[in-house]
Each structure stands twice: as C-alpha cells, then as structure tokens.
C-alpha cells in the first residue's frame, strides 16, 4: 500500500523503482487516510479533503526521527538512537520519542548545564531572536543563562515576555532579562549619550515585532497612508502618532550607562528616588531630535496600545501596562504559535511571521478585494492560540502538539506531480536546509571530531555551537567565516538565513575544515569503526550522517567503495565524504 514507506524500512528489500512507487503513491496519497491525532490534524486534513488536495504519505520512521530530533534538539539522532527506534514495536513510539527529547521539568533542585540539547537549541533560538550579541558584552552569558533557566523550569511564555519587558536592573551584566530592554538603546554622537525617544521607538518596534508579529518599522517614520496601501492594509491606516503612542509606554524607562564608555547599563523607570542618570524629561518628548528618523511633530503621545487603543491602568507603571496589554491580547498567542509553527513546518500560517496584517485575519470580516485573508488556516491559527493560552503558554506543550500531529509527520516525498497551489495546504513536508550552527554541529557529531572552545566570560567549555554564544568562535577565522557563509546572523539587523549558494556547495566538497573533520584521526568515529567489519562500518556511517540504514543497493555500492580503495581507511573516508555531500545530509526533510 504505502510502497515508498515500506521499501525503506528493511535493508534487504531491493530498491523499488520510482516509477513503481509513483503508481503506488498515487493510490496512497489519498484523502483522509491518515489518522487525526489532534486539533492540528483536524484542520489541516479537513481542508485538504474539502478542496480535493492530495497529500504525501506519512514519513517513515527514520525520516521522522531525524527531522524531529533536529527540530527539537538541533542535533542528529545517534546511530544507537536510530537502531533502537527502528526496533521498537510500540505503536506509540513516535509520541514517546518526542516526550524523551523534551526534558521534563526538574524536580530535585535545579542543576545547571546538564547536557540538555533541547535547552541549548531553544536558548540559542531565543538568543538569536532577542539579538544577544556583543552589544551586551559581559551581559551575554547573563542573558543566555536567564533564557536557559526560563526554559529549564518551564516559565510560561507570557510570564517570560512580561518579565523581560518590565525588568529593572542596576546592571544588565548581572540581571539577564534587562538586556532585552537595554539592547535597543540608541546612542548618538561621539560621546556616550542616549537618544531617549529613539530608544523608546526601538524598544516598541522590536517588542511589537517579536511578540505580536506586527512590524511597525515603516510607520515609525511616516504615516501608512500614501506608502503601504499595497503592502499592509492595517498599517496603511496607521499614523506616526499611533506609533509614538506605542513607543510612549517606554517614555519613563531610562537606560543609562553604569560607567562611561562601557556597554553596561542601568534600566529603571524614572520616578521618585534612585535614578543617577536622569538627563532627560520623564516621558516621551516630541521636541527632541531623532538621530535615526525623520523629525517628529506635535501630537498627543499619551501611551495607547496600537492594536486596540487601550491605556495604562491607574496603579501600574507604563511598562507594566504595556506588558499587560501585550500578553493579554489574543494576537500575542497567535503570533507566538505562528512563529513556532514556522520553525517546525517551514512556513508560517501567516508568512513571513513578522508580517501580520491585522485587517486580514478574520474570515467573518474579510478585507475588500483584491486583498485576501492572510492566514492559510485562520481557524487553525485561532484554535492553536487559544489552546496555547489555555495550557498556560507552555512551550513544551505547544512543541509536543505540533510534532505529534500527523500534519507535521507527513513525508517530503510527494510522489506525484506537485502543483503550486498545494503550497498553502502543507500537503507535504517542506524541506529546509540545516541552519549554520546545526550544519556544523551535525558535521562534528557525525564525524565524532569536536573542537572544544571557551564560552566567553564564563569558566565553561563547550563542544557544540548551540551551547555557545556565536562569538565564542571569534569574529574572524576559518570557522566563523564558514558559519557566516552558511547564513549565520550577527544578531543585528539580519536574521539567520538558510539560503543556499555556490560557495556553500564548494565548501561541502572541498573546504579544508570539512576535509579535516572527515579524516580518520584519534578519537574520531572512523578510528573506532575501522576495527569493525566493512558492513558495520557502512551501516554505522549511514546512521551517523543521514540517520537511516543503507538500502541494499547503497550497501553494495559502499562495500564496493571500501574494498576497491588503496587503503581501507581511505575508502571509509571517501564514503563519509560522500555521505556528508548528500542532499539528505545538509537538508532537514
């Protein structure tokens, strides 16, 4: 029935020609055959069934295992993990492996830095998102440890957001969450002067973008009218003054240097009492000069939340008001689930995730033609958001919900002619290139050759890039250059990219660092394997790199390669080189 699925399960079956698989696949990529495991499946498969869209079959065990291990932990499954997963006959083994990849909440005290790839991977994700880079200097590990802790003990996502937005600190070097605010400071001139209003603007832009998925950059400089009519309907009606009222929530927040020219900051709300660096008005002033934007003009800048106009309540500070309004708005949960959906599924229900058009979200109030509803699955988005909120904004819950769904577990192999209109249905799994850090960690892991490095400003050492801050490798040098070539972000204005390039392909073929990883050397996987018989070498290398056993044909070719080599060691290196150059190594499918 599912020819492609079964033919890859056992190693002894000969390869089924693709034409045959095609014929079977046409039968098997059917409508509604796949079990609906949770609310995600209900929406995804119902819509496909309704619109007569064929979909791929479920991914087989090895495809699924590699994908979910990379997505949840940033690492490849080990050969042992692949073998034991394949042998497992439990019908719930997929759910079980997902549960095992996500660490439970600690119960006996809270220990630091146990080897928890899940925590490393998502700490790295948030460090990229909140741009934890050299601008935080010695605050880098502090911020990183804070994020790690939040994930380790399972702080709800809304608490996480509120904690950072409202955090105060006498130094962001010692108080992690304050770096979320101080990172957005705008300095001007040759001296060390903060431009207060520009800083408020930046905090507002980044908070709104990250937590609401709404990008206010455009309207921070000009009204939407006359600019955005073809880009974003909701934003086209917004005025600069609306943006200033959003930025004004941070008007009383002062960020000041602790010492002269050092990147260490106090974060405080001005008010009676302690505020050693109160150089400016305690509010958002339109009269000040901007060093980044077009001059401001007279307007009412009483803080008003841009989504609904709501104001600060008596008894709360303005930042507390912002944090409350932000996290209680339904858009907070919607933007969050959409962002993580994009991470796992390859594209957001609203895509790109920071491009929400708030006038195009509600199918019962559709926008005027030619505008369409923006989310591909508006009801799913709302249901996911409600479910996330109902479960106390628990990230572990959300990740499990997504990865346990069969929608996530569809194969990338569609097996019949793909039509572009299927793009919006999630009819197959979208292949994604390994991110720059994932790529290098995968090379290290599969070759068994690791570089140990210092995690700057700490006494700790790391083996995986995901355990580090990206600058722990230096700003320049062969490895940093390689990572940048593969799209690493500098955590300034450009996000990490997974675009491909000719130079990347050349690096995989012939980069000196990659080649030196492959060599059979002391401590490497190859060194250990070469004491074993050929068949074991072949199987282990396959499992270590592309996370599945070889097919019969692949095994034949590989054994042939090993036996024909001048030296056995060279043959094994050649096989490892070829495995690292396969598309199913560099891509997560």
């Amino acid at each position, binding site marked *: 029935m599912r020819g492609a699925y079964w033919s890859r399960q056992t190693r002894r079956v000969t390869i089924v020609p693709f034409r045959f698989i095609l014929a079977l696949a046409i039968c098997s990529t059917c409508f509604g055959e796949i079990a609906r495991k949770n609310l995600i499946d209900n929406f995804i498969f119902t819509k496909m069934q309704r619109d007569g869209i064929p979909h791929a079959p479920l991914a087989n065990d090895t495809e699924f295992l590699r994908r979910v291990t990379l997505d949840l932990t940033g690492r490849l499954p080990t050969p042992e993990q692949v073998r034991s997963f394949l042998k497992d006959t439990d019908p719930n083994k997929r759910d079980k492996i997902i549960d095992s990849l996500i660490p439970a909440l600690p119960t006996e005290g809270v220990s630091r830095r146990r080897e928890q790839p899940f925590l490393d991977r998502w700490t790295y994700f948030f460090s990229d998102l909140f741009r934890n880079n050299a601008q935080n200097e010695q605050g880098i590990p502090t911020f990183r440890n804070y994020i790690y802790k939040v994930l380790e003990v399972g702080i709800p996502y809304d608490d996480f957001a509120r904690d950072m937005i409202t955090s105060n600190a006498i130094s962001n070097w010692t108080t992690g969450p304050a770096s979320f605010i101080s990172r957005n400071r705008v300095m001007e001139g040759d001296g060390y002067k903060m431009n207060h209003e520009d800083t408020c603007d930046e905090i507002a832009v980044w908070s709104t973008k990250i937590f609401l998925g709404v990008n206010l950059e455009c309207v921070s400089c000009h009204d939407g009218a006359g600019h955005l009519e073809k880009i974003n309907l909701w934003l086209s009606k917004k005025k600069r003054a609306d943006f200033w009222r959003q930025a004004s929530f941070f008007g009383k927040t002062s960020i000041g240097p602790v010492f002269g020219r050092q990147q260490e900051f106090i974060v405080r709300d001005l008010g009676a009492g302690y505020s050693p660096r109160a150089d400016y008005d305690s509010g958002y002033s339109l009269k000040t000069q901007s060093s980044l934007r077009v001059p401001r003009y007279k307007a009412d800048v009483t803080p008003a939340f841009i989504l609904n106009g709501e104001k600060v309540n008596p008894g709360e500070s303005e930042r507390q008001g912002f944090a409350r309004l932000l996290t209680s708005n339904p858009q907070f949960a919607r933007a969050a689930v959409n962002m993580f959906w994009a991470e796992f599924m390859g594209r957001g229900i609203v895509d790109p*995730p920071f491009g929400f058009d708030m006038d195009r979200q509600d199918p019962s109030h559709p926008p005027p033609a030619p505008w369409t509803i923006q989310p591909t699955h508006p009801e799913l988005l709302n249901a996911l958001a409600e479910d996330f909120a109902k479960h106390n904004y628990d990230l572990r819950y959300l990740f499990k919900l997504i990865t346990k769904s069969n929608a996530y577990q569809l194969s990338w192999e569609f097996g019949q002619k*793909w039509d572009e209109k299927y*793009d919006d249905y999630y009819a197959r799994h979208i292949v994604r*290139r390994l991110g720059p850090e994932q790529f290098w960690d995968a090379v290290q892991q599969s070759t068994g050759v690791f570089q140990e490095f210092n995690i700057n400003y700490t006494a700790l050492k790391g083996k995986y890039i995901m355990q580090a801050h990206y600058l722990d490798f230096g700003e320049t040098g062969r490895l940093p250059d390689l990572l940048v070539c593969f799209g*690493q972000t500098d955590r300034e*204005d*450009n996000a990490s990219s997974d675009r491909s390039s000719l130079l990347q392909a050349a690096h995989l073929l012939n980069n000196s660092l990659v080649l030196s990883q492959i060599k059979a050397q002391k401590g490497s996987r190859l060194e250990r394997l070469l004491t074993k018989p050929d068949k074991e070498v072949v199987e282990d290398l396959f499992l270590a790199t592309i996370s599945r056993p070889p097919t019969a044909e692949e095994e034949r070719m590989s054994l042939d390669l090993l036996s024909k080599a001048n030296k056995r060691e060279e043959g094994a290196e050649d096989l490892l080189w*070829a495995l690292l150059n396969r*598309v199913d190594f560099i891509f997560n499918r």
Partner: protein
Amino acid sequence: MRLRSDLPILNRRKFFQLGALSVTGGWLAPLEQPLRAATSEKVSPRGSAECVIFVNMVGGPSQMDTFDLKELKTTPANLDVRTTKQGLKWPYKLLPETAGILDDLVIVRSMGAWEATHNLAQYWQQVGHGFSAARAKEMPSIGSVIAYELRNKAKSSDFLPPFVSMNFPAGGQNGFLLNEGFLDSAAAPLAMDLRNGLDVPFVLPDEYQSRYDRRMEFLKAFDTGRKVDTDWAPKRFLEWESFTRGAHKMLKSPEIGKIFQLTGEERERYGSNAFGDACLIARNMVRAQAGARYILLNQGGWDHHGFIYGRGQGEEAVPGKPRRGPGGVYGLSAQFDQGFANLIRDLKETKSRDGNSTLLEKTFVLANGEFGRTPGPLNGIQGRDHWAAVRCGAFAGGGVKHAGRVIGATDEQGAKITRFDWHKNRPIYPEDVTATIYSVLGIDWTKSLSGTPSGRDFLYVEPMSGTNFIGSTEVRELFI
C-alpha cells in the same frame, strides 16, 4: 531565529526542467510572472568592455590627500607633493606607483554622494540605489543585475560566476549589500573573504585530484536525492544540485589553479596583503576570460576619523620588504597603490584571447569611496570625518579615452565642487556611476523589471533622487 521565509525565495515561480545551466548553478528559467522589461528613454549603451572591476575604497578616502591633492595647513610636509607630467598635483609619498600609471587613468574630482553614513552610502556604492527598508530584501546588487543581463552571453567554457566580490563581509549587517534580491540564484554573488588567508575551497592540490575524481564519481551515482523526479522535487534540492555542478566545474577547471594560486613574487609585488591578493585574483579572473563580469574588490580602512596622518613618521620603505607606514592614510595608500597600479599595469600588458586588444581595453576599472572627508582643520582626534559633498575617483580601461586627464575640480579646500566638467553640470552621483558601469557592458540602464515581490517595478537606475529629478545617465565624457 531563522526567518527563512522572510527572504524573497522564488516560491511563487515555477521552475522548469534543468536546461542550460549557468555556471553558477542557477537556472535562469522563465519565471512564472515573467519579469516584464521596459525602458524609458532612448539610450545607446556603449558595450566597450567585457568585464568591470570596481575597487570599493570602503570608509571614504580623503580627497585632499589622494586624487584631489590640496596643500593645506594641516597637510603633512612629507607627502612629497610634485606636479606630474600630466599636470596634476600628486602626493608621491603616498601613491608613487599610481603616479606612474596616470597616463592610463582619468581622475574625476567632481563626484558627490547622497549619504554621509557608511551603511547607507555603501548601499549606494554596491546596489546603486538609496536604501529602503521596504525594498531592501528584493533589491539586487549591481553585480546581480549584470549577471542577469549578461546570462545569454555565457559560454560553455565559462567556469566563473559573473558576480564576484572579495573582502567584504557577506553576512550580517552587510547582507543587503551583496545580494541578488528577487533575481534568480544564478545572479548571486560569489563572496570570498581573503582577509584570513587564501583558504578558498576551489583549488584541488595535484596529489588530491584523482581521489577527488573518485569521490565525485561515487557521489553522482550514490546521491539519489539529487535525481528525484522533477515533477515534485523540492526546489531546494534542484538548486543545491545546480550549485554543486557549478562548484565542481570550478574545481575541475584546469585554469582554476592559475586564478587562485599566487606566486610569492607577484604577491610581494602587489603588497603581500589581502587587498593585493584580491587584485591579483581579479587580474587572473580577467585573464582567464571565464565568465566573470563584475568583480568587486573591497578595501576597508579608509575611515580616518582619527590620526589620519598617522601617529608619527613610520619606517621608510626597505627594499625587498613590504612597505609600512605610520598608519592612517599612509598605510591605506601604500596598500592601494601597490595593488591598484600593478593591476592596471598587468592588465595593460596582457593581450586578450583574440589578440586584438589588451585586457585593459576590454576591462572597465574604477576606484572610489562612498564619500569624501571633511576639509579644513582636523577634528579633535587628528582625523577627518565624513563629507558627502565631494568625493573623487579614478577610471581606466573599457573604452575610456584620452586618459591622463582630470574631469572636474574643487575649491582650494577640497570642500566644494567648482567645475563639473560634464554635460549634466552637477556632481556625478552614484546613479551616474552605476549607469556608466551598465553602459560599458552594453546594458540599457533605463530598463526596469516588474514582477518583484513588493509589486513595485525595479528600475536599474532611478532618474530621480528623492524628490529631485536629476536625469541619471552615463558619464560619457569619460569616453570621448
């Protein structure tokens, strides 16, 4: 956070079968919404060059101390200022070898810039447009437009990508500067950084060749993922496969060693530094005549806010040793001088494949920075700051006529342009330089393409700048 779908990946376009692959591995196939081209006025691009080398003097060199020499109160006494035989006042201490090739250069002193901040001004340099946050992700760099336009001129013997950049960081905050934007991945730059040494993955040591061949032979049969039915193959796989083919073609080219393997003697002649190495590689790429059309050579360090004249007088040149000066404009000029002058000389001495001309005649070379520096007294840290009103440049080859002359002049301080010396009678802006580059390659700079993700037409060169209609056009005075 990987915002992969933020980027203008061509996910709405239909990729057809892999037909004629361009050497960079992309397949500039017809796009589903074809890029409708339109032109606005009647111009005749001159098509006098096959390749362009753009020496990007990043940071903004001081016009008063380089191509537009002024002897001010602040000018050091040891610049050895003399009048060249072409009649230019020239700092022989800083740029002696360039003085020796002035007969091949047209020095332009009436250039201006729109921006005085690096990122925005460099954006003009490399993309030829003003930065717009709304459009940055889809705007192609100048080199990518060239790659797109000249794709039909690619020969089967070509093994170099059309757009090459050296020594400018490709990622991070400079990501928008070196980008094919909404154009096909075949227009993407090959961005190499040699500042950590010549560790490029394109060279196969002789003793490794046969092993590499065996490995590739094996991979071709082994990697079934690359041969998935194109009816439903993910575009990412097709793209990766074509990039691999392009990389392989480069690696296997018998000429590739000649491009990236530099001899000790020539490295020393070019200055023994990353800029000199990049100039050498550019020369070799042009000599190979293997598909490179736009080579962007980036020399960073001209941003002399402090100690522009160094911190003291440095060592004199020692024969046989790379010259070192006290830093500031001395160091940068020495680096520029050796690389640039030798590049021009070598191009002039090499004949093109058909023997009818020199490589210099077929290559348009230009050198300039993104803005000039403040005239008059030095600032508080003995340096000069940004000055958008005046910048200067050197142009050679590719149709440039009556070299050994100057276009334009500035006042005695170097603060204001007093003579424009071209038909537009205004400063030569980045748009004009861009139009000139397109023109020498035979590209109609008034062309525009539709079908961008934002819906806004992409004009190769905007006739307006902000709210001023400036009528951007090629600087034809270079060629008459």
